[in-house]
């Protein structure tokens, strides 16, 4: 059974089609990334999958329940870690968690041990009785994550989980997210703007733009779809030209020799590299240096969504929200 399954999922706001006949499925235990420019339809999709918005057309099932007909079942099965910091600064971490536990009907007797379990999992046990005011940005974000876990969700939605965090905190968040998937078998659906985050964290990535999914695959495959890797080999003796010999190898697409430095465009570089080296060594040519460059996900993203800057209409509210968010998370 898929953790998430959508069929022609569509949301229109008046004339604007925010999400346009989107179909995809997320496997159980997968970390699935949703990438796209601002206003591409990421948050709208999350809102529909978490029952905050009703789809205009199409259908979606989360944890096996229909988001429209069985919305209360869906709400029990999913956790949402919103983009905003919603934890209450005036309350302690424990008080925030207790409120969340009540909203998810976790029985009183099991609530406290469960809270401590989740907080220790995220390294917040020691800070449980401190006011959230005193928390760092990373701790707040982790408390937010902890709140999403209180009711043993099957699917966790993470909307920009590391937005505004510094590199150390971001790497730590990734570790926690992986740990949750591995130890708790939770399916993760995350949106992000950070390509390296999607690359290291996600099993599969969907790129969405103008409400449509324009690419969907594992990060590695997406990078390959750009036309392959670049292998560079510098040889010490350039008397013998190897261009034709190398070009005859399977999966090699293009070879250029510039003063003893061969630049080889190749599919699946890491698999082709041993063959290339073998070929060179057969000719008794000494290799000085080898490098393999994969295209980055940034390149993939720009390839699919284009390089033009989006002058999307930014609402005043959105800007205010962002400023407020950044200032809180950086505390």
């Amino acid at each position, binding site marked *: 059974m898929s953790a998430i399954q959508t069929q022609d999922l569509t949301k229109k706001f008046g004339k604007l089609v925010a999400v346009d006949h989107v179909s995809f499925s997320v496997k159980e235990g997968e970390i699935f990334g949703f990438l796209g420019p601002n206003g591409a339809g990421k948050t709208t999709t999350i809102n529909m999958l978490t029952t*905050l918005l009703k789809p205009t057309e199409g259908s979606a099932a989360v944890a096996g329940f229909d988001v429209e007909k069985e919305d209360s079942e869906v709400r029990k099965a999913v956790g949402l870690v*919103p983009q905003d910091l*919603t934890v209450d600064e005036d309350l302690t971490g424990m008080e925030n968690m207790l409120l969340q536990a009540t909203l998810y009907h976790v029985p009183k007797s099991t609530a406290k041990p469960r809270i401590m379990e989740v907080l220790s999992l995220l390294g917040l046990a020691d800070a449980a009785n401190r006011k959230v005011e005193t928390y760092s940005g990373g701790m707040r974000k982790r408390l937010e994550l902890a709140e999403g876990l209180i009711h043993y969700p099957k699917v966790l939605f993470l909307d920009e989980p590391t937005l505004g965090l510094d590199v150390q905190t971001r790497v730590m968040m990734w570790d926690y997210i992986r740990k949750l998937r591995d130890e708790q078998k939770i399916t993760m659906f995350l949106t992000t703007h950070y390509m390296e985050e999607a690359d290291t964290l996600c099993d599969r990535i969907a790129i969405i733009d103008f409400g449509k999914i324009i690419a969907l695959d594992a990060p590695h495959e997406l990078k390959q779809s750009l036309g392959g890797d670049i292998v560079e080999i510098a040889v010490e003796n350039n008397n013998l030209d190897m261009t034709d010999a190398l070009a005859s190898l399977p999966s090699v697409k293009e070879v250029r020799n510039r003063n003893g430095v061969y630049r080889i465009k190749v599919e699946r570089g890491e698999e082709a590299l041993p063959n290339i080296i073998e070929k060179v060594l057969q000719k008794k040519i000494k290799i000085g240096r080898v490098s393999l460059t994969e295209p980055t996900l940034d390149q993939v993203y720009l390839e699919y969504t284009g390089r033009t800057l989006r002058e999307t209409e930014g609402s005043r509210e959105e800007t205010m929200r962002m400023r407020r968010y950044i200032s809180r998370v950086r505390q």
Partner: protein
Amino acid sequence: MIEEILALATREIKKWVKNPFLLLMMIIQPIIWLGLFGKAFNLTGLVKIDTSKLPPELTQLIGQQIGQLINNTLNSMFGTTDYFTFMSAGMLSVIVLFTAMFSGMSIVWDRRFGFLNKVLVAPIRRASYILAKVFSSVLRALFQSLLIFSIAFAFGLKPGDAFGPLDMLGAFSALFLLSLGLSSLFVALTVRIKSHEAVMAVANLLNLPLMFTSSAIFPIKQMPDWLQAVAHWNPISYSSDAVRKFILHSQAGLDATQLLIDFQFLIAFAAAFTIIGIMLADRGLRKG
């Protein structure tokens, strides 16, 4: 469902109690109100006659007969010869109105900070969230009324000679009904409003008209006919009247007929708006 409401209402109350500035303002505000309206606006003082400045031969006549006449007139207008007492009783309802007005404000903040979304994805009834807002606002309003009552007492409020704990209970049940209805009304108005400026505008548009078209600070009998008609539909008139009757409870007894009318109106008002609030909650809170 009750647990959810309690948990959400506790959150509101905690946020409020943990803010010493809000608590301080809440104590200062009623003092200013009582001082300005009760003492500076002393309507009954205008018609009082200072007997010491009259020629001695007139003192007897003025002091007793005309004085009696004036007092009778005042009694029939205000129910008491002391405007401060009249006004303080009405001010309790006005404070309830002012507290209720901002009950919707926190919904706007919850929406902005994303807390609303978190509540909406939780498997709870949406009405729980609305009721929690309403109840915490009612609690705040009643606490503030109690505060203003104690301060008014210290400033010279003169209750009737038969005033007792039961009258206190009666007065606060009227205030409870008023705050339940008004909080629900303002919460219902703000479920779909997204900016706090708009909430302020709505609150400012409604507060003074609601206050001045009621019998809170001026007796209905002395109003022009058209204003009387409006005042008869204003719930603040009914709660002011009920509270005043209980506070001025004298040996002569309570006017049960009028109190019954007051409570009937207040119960209908509270029930209607609580139901409207809950009904709007489900559709209004959902986005798009």
